[in-house]
Structures are given as C-alpha cells and as structure tokens.
C-alpha cells in the first residue's frame, strides 16, 4: 500500500529508504527529503512543554498530485515517512497510524540489536521484511 517508506535519522540523513522499484527512485528521495521540512515545522510548532506528551504521529504532511506523505517522529527525533499513492482511498488515518506503530516497533528491535551501530544504515532482514510486507499489501 505504501509506495515508499523511509527512516530518517535525527541528523536528517536517511537510515533506510525503500521505494517501489518501478518508479523513479529520485522522485521518492525528493519527496521524502522535502517532507523533512514539514516535519521540522510540525515539531517546532509544538510547544516545549507539550513535547513530552506529544503525539508521535504527525498525520498527513503534505499531499502532492500523486502521493500523500505521512510522517511520524519518535521521541529520539527519528523520522518515519510513508508515501502513499493518493489514488488509494482505502487507507484511513487509523491504518496509517498502525503502520507507523508497526514500523516503530520493528525499528526499536533494530536498535536493540547490540551489533547495530546507531547511525548506521539499517540492514536488518526482519526490518526489511516488515517494510516489504507494508509495501506489498496494497499491490
């Protein structure tokens, strides 16, 4: 259902980007990259006092002609971005939310791996399979 799933580190470089292979990768990179600005805006928009109980899910970041971009920020400022085909109307906010939650759980597992160096590219098979499951479901 998702056409592109990205994990962006706190320092705004990608830890993981996976997109549907058929379309141009560059476009998705661009989309994800652009979304970072919106994410940043949204984070800074929330007051500092509220930062603790802040909702991790950011909702729809921005829609483009073909895609809808959803964002999610963990407490450690790691960003998840899911790009969804805008023609896909079956996806509601709740589904996106659960996708993010799943992604977050898997990401936490990756982080718990003692052999993972924080800041490295994610090369976990388990994570890979979760992501591909999310991407396949739609097609």
């Amino acid at each position: 259902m998702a056409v592109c799933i990205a994990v962006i580190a706190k320092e705004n470089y990608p830890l993981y980007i996976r997109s549907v292979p058929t379309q141009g990768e560059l476009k998705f990179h661009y989309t994800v990259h652009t979304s970072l600005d919106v994410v940043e805006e949204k984070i800074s928009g929330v007051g500092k006092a509220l930062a603790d109980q802040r909702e991790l899910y950011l909702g729809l970041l921005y829609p483009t002609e073909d895609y809808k971009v959803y964002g999610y920020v963990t407490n450690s400022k790691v960003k998840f971005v899911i790009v969804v085909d805008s023609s896909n109307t079956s996806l509601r906010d709740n589904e996106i939310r659960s996708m993010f939650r799943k992604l977050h759980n898997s990401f936490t597992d990756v982080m718990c791996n003692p052999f993972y160096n924080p800041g490295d590219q994610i090369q976990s098979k388990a994570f890979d399979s979760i992501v591909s499951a999310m991407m396949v479901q739609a097609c």
Partner: protein
Amino acid sequence: MKQRYGPQGCYLLKINSRSDATGADEQMPDPWSQYLHKTSIHNPELYEESAVNNAVENDVGAVEDGFDSAARDDMSESHPLQLDQPTETCYPGNNRSQSVDMTRPQKQSSVTPATPRWTCLTLNDHDRIRQFLQEFTFRGLLPHIEKNIRQLNDQLVSRKGLSRSLFSATKKLFGGGKVPEKSIADLKNTAGLLYPSEAPELQIRKMADLCFLVQHYELAYNCYHTAKKDFLSDQAMLYAAGSLEMAAVSAFLQSGAPRPYPAHYMETAIQTYRDVCKNMLLAERCCLLSAEISKSQAKYSEAATLLIKMTSEDCDLRSALLLEQAAHCFINMRTPMVRKFAFHMILAGHRFSKAGQKRHALRCYCQALQVYKGKCWTLAEDHINFTIGRQSFTLRQPENAVAAFRHILINDSKQSAVQQAAFLREYLYVYKSMSQLSGETSLPQLPLPCLHSSQTRVFFGHERRLAEGEKQAATHVTLDQEYDRDLSQLWRELEEQVVPAVNRGTVPVTFQPSQCCLNSQTDNLRYPLAVVEEPIIVEVVFRNPLKVPLVLSALSLLWKFTLKDFSGPQGGTIGETITNEKEAASSKDNAALNDIMDTQVIPEFTVSPEETKVARLKLLPRKTGELHVLGVVYNLDTTDVGSSEDSPASELMCVRGQQNLEIQGPRLNMTKEEKTSVSYGPDRRLDPIITPPMPLLEVFFINFPTGLLCGEIRKAWVEFVNVSAVPLTGLRVASTHPEFFTFGSATSDLTPVTPTAAEHCSAYKTLATPPSVAAVALVSPAAFGVTGGDRPAVTEIPLSRGVLGPGEALQIPLWLRGPDQEGVHEINFLFYYESTEKTAKLSHRVLRHTAFICASRSLSVRATASRSNTLQGGEREQRGTEEKNSSMLVFVDVENINTSEAGVREFHIVQVSSSSRQWKLHQCINPAGDKGENSKLANRERGKLCFRATRCRTEEGGTAATSGAIEKYTFADLNLGNEQIVSSTTPCADFFFRRSLPSEPRRGGVSTGSANQMRRHSLTPHNANEDGVTSIIRKCSEVELDIIVLWKAYVVEDNKQLILEGQLHVALQTIGKEVCSLSQKEETQEMVLLKFKPDVPPPISKPSLEQLSHLIKTCLHYPESYDHPFPLKSLCMVPVTLTLSNCSLAQVDIIIDLRHKTTSPESLEVHGSFTWLGQTQYKLQLQAQEVYRLSLKACFFQAGVYNLGTPRVFAKLAQTSAMCETSQQSAMPALIIINGV
C-alpha cells in the same frame, strides 16, 4: 576662475608632487586599503569595479544614496567613469561640476591598474587632499545644499499658500487636455510621463533627496511621502515607485523610528517597477535594497522570498545571484534551514553554470555538497559530485574533478546503468586528460573495480595436472579449494608427526608448517618461502560495484624485488632493489625484467556488472631474493558492446592505472596493551622470500580405486617423480588412516613388477596346499615397522640409494585395505621430502594428497571363544597335562551383509588365520564336506565355522608375555580351499599390524595391564595384594587371539566377473564374549550427569563372581552306558573320574561337595535314585595350571538315565583368606545310561 565662480567655489589643489616613484614608498599609507577587499586584489576586473564603487561611496559618505533615476539618465551619458553597474552613483545636480572635475584625477589614480596606489603622492599631498575635501564639504557643498533646501522649502511653502486647491484646480482647468493626451498616448506606458524639471513635484522630490543626503531622514521621508502622493495622483508610476522606495529607505534609516518600517512601500515599489514600468533593472535594485533592509531586521525568510520572487527565466546571472543570496538568507535564519540552503545553492549553481560563470557555479555546488556529504542521500550527492566533477574539469582542476567522479563511482550507487556508464565514461575521459596533462611517471590510483585486498590469496607452486591417463596425481593444494580451518589443522598435525620422526624425535626450532596457499585465515606472520623457478600465483579479488561491465586489460602485478644470494654465509648478500613500476606504466610488453621475474600479463579481464571475480596473476622468480608484491596495474576500460570495434574510441576511453594491495593483518589480542588498544599484526602474505632451488616431488597413483568393500585388499601402484633439477631424499609419508594402506614390509621382496602385469594376480602371496592342520609362522612385528604398541603414522618409503635424482621416477606397489566402516572415507596422505643439501631456509617440503574411498559393506564376522570342556582323547597322554589344559574352541560366525545384490554375487571364505602371541588356531572342526558349503555366502547368508585353538608351544605361559618388546606373533593359517595364503607376509600381516585397535584398552595386554596395575599401586598400596589377585583371576579368563578371515568376493561388473579379496580382523579378548569385526555403532552417548562430588572409587579390587567362577574347569569322565545285571546284584557301582584343572596362575583351594542339593523335592525324585559313594566332600589345593583327577564312585539302584553332573565345586585363591569360596561353573549335564541286563 574666482571671478567666474566666486572665491567659495574655487580651490587650488597641488597633487602628484612626487618626482621619482623609486623612493622608499613602501611605508606610504594606502588610504584605500581599508575600503578595498583583500579578495578583489586577485581579480583585476573586480578590483576596478570595487575600487570605483568605494571611491564613489567614500565621497558621498553613505552606503546607498538615493539618486534620482531620471536625473541619473541625464547624467550617465556624460559621466566619464560610467560603468555598467546598477549601483553606481552619480550626482544629481549639474551645479557641482567642479567637484566632479576635482575628484577626477583622484579617481583616475585609483583606477590605474598598478597595485601600489598613490605612488605619485607625497604625504603632503595626502594632507592637502584631505584638507581640500574638508574645505569643499564645509565651505562649498553643505552651504550649497542648505541654500537649495531653503529655496525649495520657500517655494513649496509659498505654493502651499496658494494651496493645493488652486494647484489642483488649475490642473483641472489646464490639465484637462493633458490627461486625455496621456490616456491616449501613454496609457500603457504611464512611466513614460515626463515632468519638466521645474515641475513642483520634482521640486519636492529634489528637496527630499537633498534632505536625505544630509541625513535629515525625517524631513526626507515627509517630502518623499508628499512627492509620492503627487506622483500617484498624476499616475506617474515610475516617479511614484521611486519615491516610495526612497520613503521606505529613509523610514528605515531613521533611527529611533517613530513609525514602523513600511514594508509594503517596498513591495508596491517593486511591483510597480516590474509590472507597470516593465523596468526589471530598477525592480531588482529595489528588491536588493529591500532584502538588505529585511536582513538587517533579521527578517530572513521575507528577504529570501523577496529574492526568490525576483528570479526569472530571462537572465541567468541575475537569478543566480539572487538565489545565492536567498540561500544565504536561509542558512542565516534562527533555525537554519539547511536543506533549503542547499537546494537554492544548487539552483544558483545551475543558473551560474548556464550563465557561463563556472567558477561561481563550482563554488555554489561545493557549498551545497557540504550539506549532503557523508549523508546517505546518495542520489543528491551523486548529482552534486557529478556536476562538481564536470565544472572542475572545465576549470582545469582535474584533481578535484577526479576526486568528485571517484566519489560517485566508488560508493554503491543507486543510479541506473545508463547513468553509471555515463559517469564512468566521463570519469575516464577526465582521468585520461589529466594524466596527459600532468605527464608524471608514477601511475595514478584507480578506484575501480574495488579490490578486496584482504581476500587476496597467494599460492606457491605449479598449477598441477590432476590426471594423466590412468595416472592420478596427488591432489596437493590448489587455489580452487576453499580454506578449511580443521583441514589445515589436520595437515599441520600430520606434518608435526613427520618432522620429529625425521629429526630423531624432536621438532626443530625453526620448524614452520608448510603453507602453499595463503589467505586471510592462515598464519601470515612469517615471510612465506617460495622457491626460485617455481611460480607464485596471486589471486586478487575484484568487485565491480557498477551496473556496467568493466574491462581490465593488460592486467599484471606490480612488484619490488631485492636480489639476495642465500648461498653465501650469514643470510647472504643483499643486492639491488628492482621494481617493475616503470615498465608497467607503459602497457607495452615488459620483457626487460623477465630474466629476474617473469610477470604474467592477462590481456583482457572482464568484470560483469555487480560481480565479484578473481584474477590469478602469476610471477615466476628467476633469482633468489626478497619479493614484495605491491599491487596490480591495468588499463581500465568500458565496454560498449557496439563501439568496442572501433579502436580509436576505445583507445580514448582507456586509462592505465594501478591499485595497491595493502593487507592489514589480524587484530592483535594477546597482551593487555593490545587488548585495550586497536593494533594489527603484520601480514606478510605478499612478501615471499625466494629461496634457492628445492626438489619438487610429483606423486601419481595408478589403479587407485575409489570404491572398496570393507576390508577389501587391493593392490595399487604409486609413482614418485622428482620434477626438479635437485635430488630428493628422505621420502616419508604420514596419513590420517595408516591402517588403510601399506607399502609392504622390508622383508617382502620388492620386485618391480609393472602394474599392468600384476593386474589380475592376487594381492596375496599364496601356496598350493590342501586344507589340513594350520601352517604356522612366527613373525616379529618389528619387521613390519611396528615398534611399540602404537600404530605407525609415518612410513618411510625406500628409495634406491636413498636419493631420487632429478627427473627420476620410482614406482612401488601399494596395498590398500578398505576401511572397516562403511561410508565415504577421506584419507589424507602427507608426503614429506627434503633436499639432499641442507639449506637453512627451507628444511623440507611436503606434498598432500586426499583420497576419497567409498567403502561398502562386505562381511560381518563374529567370533566367540569358549573353553573346551572335553579333554582331548588319544594323544593327550603324550602332550602332557599342560597342553590339554590350554585348548579353546573358537566359533566364527560370518554373515554376508552386503546389500547390493547386483554387484557382489557371493563371498567365499578362503582362509581363517590367527595371529597372537599366545594362541594359534589349530584345526577346523567343521566336518570336511560341510566346509565348501559353509564358506560360500550369498546375500544375507550366514555361516558358522568352528576351530580349535591351542596355546603356542613355543611360548612358555606368561613368561613370554612379560619378556619385553621382542615378542613374536604366531600366524596360523587354516585354509578352507586348496590355496594357502601366507598370512605372515605382505600385505596380510601388514594390515594386521596396522589394524585399528578396539576402542577399549586391551585388557591383559602387556603394556596396558601393567600400566593399570602401576596406577593402582600408586593409588592404594594396601590393595596391592588384592590387585594381584584380581589380575590373576582375570587372566585366567582372557585370551588374546586375533582372527583374520580372508575372503574372496565374486563381483560382476560390466558383465565381467571380478574376484576381490579381502581380510577382516577380529580380536578375541575374553572367553565367552562375542566380538564383532564391525565395531558396533557407538551408542549415542548418553548424557552424563555432571557430578560435583568425587565418585566413590569403584570397587575394582573385588573380582566379579563371574570371573571367579572361571577359576576351575571341571570335567567328568565315565562310560556312556553301563550294563549291569540288577537282578543279580542290586547295587551298581560305576567308576567316575572328575578332572579338575586350574586355569589360573595361582594356587587355588577347592572344595568339592558331592552331596545332592536338597533344596527341591523334584531333585530328590531325579537324583534320589543314585548316590555317590565314599568321601563326599573333598578339600584340595591345586597348583597353578595343575590338573587333578579325582576318582569317584557312583552307586545306582536301578536301570535308567542319570545325570551325573551334580558335584559342586567351590574354589578360592589360596592366599586370600578373606574371600569365601565361589561356586564354579557347573559342568554340562552328564548323562549316563544304566542298562539293566
């Protein structure tokens, strides 16, 4: 002049008074220095501009003065210093011509391109100029301005008296014609409206400008504001916009501003300029001003939007500048917007490059790269790098270009193949032109393909041919084999077995296990040794990270070689160092160094997209010395399949370069320092030492089988060839399975029968003898190379004269015996040899061979020994008591367990031989006619053979067993057919001595038994007595007899019948215990409970009851049937002899009880009918191995069948008082028939 302009307007300035400029003008202060940017000095064009700008600005005293654009148009033509600079300022008034005149020489002097400025001026001149300026401003300029302002003000005020109303009324009256005129002619071009210079609106404007000049911003703002209103009402948009702009500026400059900065003024002004007046130049000027103001108010995002808004398609340079400024705004924001900065920088760079400003473009891209460098936005990074590469190249900075391109190519790029091919082409082109430019001799380092240095493998030696006709070469080591740690450890252990065997039991200090193939896992701490005239093969691993194929041509190794002559004393003399770098640089054939080192060149090597491929590069050293392999050198080329034909294109895209092989050793982790720090050991894989010539052995196997039946004996041949020019000696072989093969014993005659002639003969040596009593031979194990109890792991191979000369070959027979376990067996041979002359460098060499043998099931032999209860009749009197005692029955149960019905038709048991130190097979008990039947076994058939074994006569009981190592084995052959196989010769005896010993230690074996006792002695001395007893007791039930079953198998293979031969060994150890030739499948080791308490020492000292019951052998002798006339004589007396023989080697006390057991009533019924007469209980003492006969009398009352086996015998060792007597195994039921007559 004074008359003309008045005394106030004239001034005489004396300048350029210096006559010679050669004086010490260095210390002259440079008045411009503080205004000129350092950077502009390097750039002559820029310098001029900035110099002029600064000069003008300096004069005016304000950064940006408000100049009237209309006035400027008048002025710009006449101004001698007019340049195409929008920010250039001119003076709005004609009346100040003298100031312009006066400043002109000054400017000209600054404009002169000579860097040292003001060289013609003395210090006095400086002062004078300064004084002049002051005079000019205070006396001329300011009063002039004041006067003007006053005049204008008066004018305006007076006009205001008449007031606007009149003014507007007149306008309405007279201007009626003016407005329609404007609407017709200039409706579109409202900006074209021109005011006469004395128009009141312009007067206001002029006054505002003057106020602005003298920094009277409040008044200036008001005036601008009025002027704006007037202009607007007149629809003179250009004027209005100008006024608006200036109003905003003066409002901004007003310190302690009473009103907020009117940002919308600027916006309106820009909009008007752009949309209404279509005057982009002015719009931009206004925009820049506005942006600067916003920036100074820290409104960066507004500034950025303004700047970005102004970018347009038509002018690249302008847009680029604006974008760059915008980018800088983004980065200056309170929370820097880095990505926006980078994005706009790239846009700016793009526009710059379109405008042809390459240097600026490159700068922009470099700045953007800082944002993306090292982050994983690969696509973005690739794009930036690619552009940087291109721009750098066009700017003749090839190093940077190469670095940028390299960056694209090395990383795992996600670009498409087409894109990558383009990158690669570009890269190669740049590289090529760079190398042409620099023209340096050392080759550049190429980034592609990736070289995995650590995976480099080095192989010393020739590529071997594996099979040559029927000859099969030793496998040795090849590069194709994967490295296996266990395997290499195994070879190492084998080598460590051989070396002490050669060096009289000690391993020399310099011992170094031979390694022919070095890789990342081998021990590379030492310099490997290579032999001169033997090739060194370096396997290099290339990986192509791209999606396009790479072609490497003229690939060869780079090396450095130090000549060294090892034959001299103390390490030899060091010669010169030679390298092939220069030769390799020119890709021509480098034959010049071939007499030192023959370097193989691979003409073409293609690495497919994303492939990892190995290249094997060969070096052939011709001299001794030290070699260092430095790296690889090659031409890098792209293949476009279509264009590969036309040579000029490919020639163009081909770059020669090198890559170094740098191998990091393993991380050190031994000492504390090493553990706490990260340090790596050396890796000397690529630095071999070339030693003087050594012999080189090739081993070929002829008729070497791949499949064998278990226990099958096969004769093969092995050929040793010395292929070097140096004689070879000390040939030995070690193996993991010494029981698998034998080269024959020294005693056997090594007649050099050719392998073809011996093909159909039996492997055994045979004699034609009819089956009869066993033939006996006595053999010492030493003759078969067996010295101790251990199996010989190392075998020496006899060479004629002990030396194998250069080019000589030796063929010797080799017997193989199929392993006892079925399955595939890996058998490793290690051939050891050394040179005849001892060189310090390389003491020995080895050759490895691995054979795989598939063993299939043949026969299973089970054997049991049991004590014969009957004493031999007939000749027993002559033999004496001793002999009678020591005979034994051996049952051999043979089963055909072969499962392949098609292959093996049947097995024939040809012969059964025995080998032992104490026993020998004497006779086959099976009936003669039965033998032929029994000895043939088809599938899953089974046969039993029974033999009688006797104790060897030559051996005096236990004395020989203890006499030492020179004990001899007796081989007894019992052939079932007409041919006797001499089992005491090669190969039968060889394999017997090489047989694998059973896993449990042989009880009673001389060495192990005594060792056991020794151990127990030391543990519990007070038990010594009992231990002795135990061993005595044990010994009496022990045999040490090895049965060798020799068989023939009839095998059909390819419609041909083959006869295979083989032998199986069974070792009998204990009487009554069945032993199988196939060692039982080891039961899966049960989990042993971990015990934390020490075990209670097992009471071994107590011999088991079962063992004790074998002390005495009993036998009853009596007539089988006895006729007695009961009617005549009611009592029948039968004499019975009870023979007791002591099996043990100690005195035994015996109690014989003849009384019937009175336990059960039935026994009374059976036995009650007869009774023993005379003494019914005896107490005897038997010496060691003594036989005692006891005459008894049985008394019968009536005819019938009786069991005489009632006497119970109890025995105990004489010296042990503590033990009670043990009941001895009762004899078989002994039936006697009493016939009544």
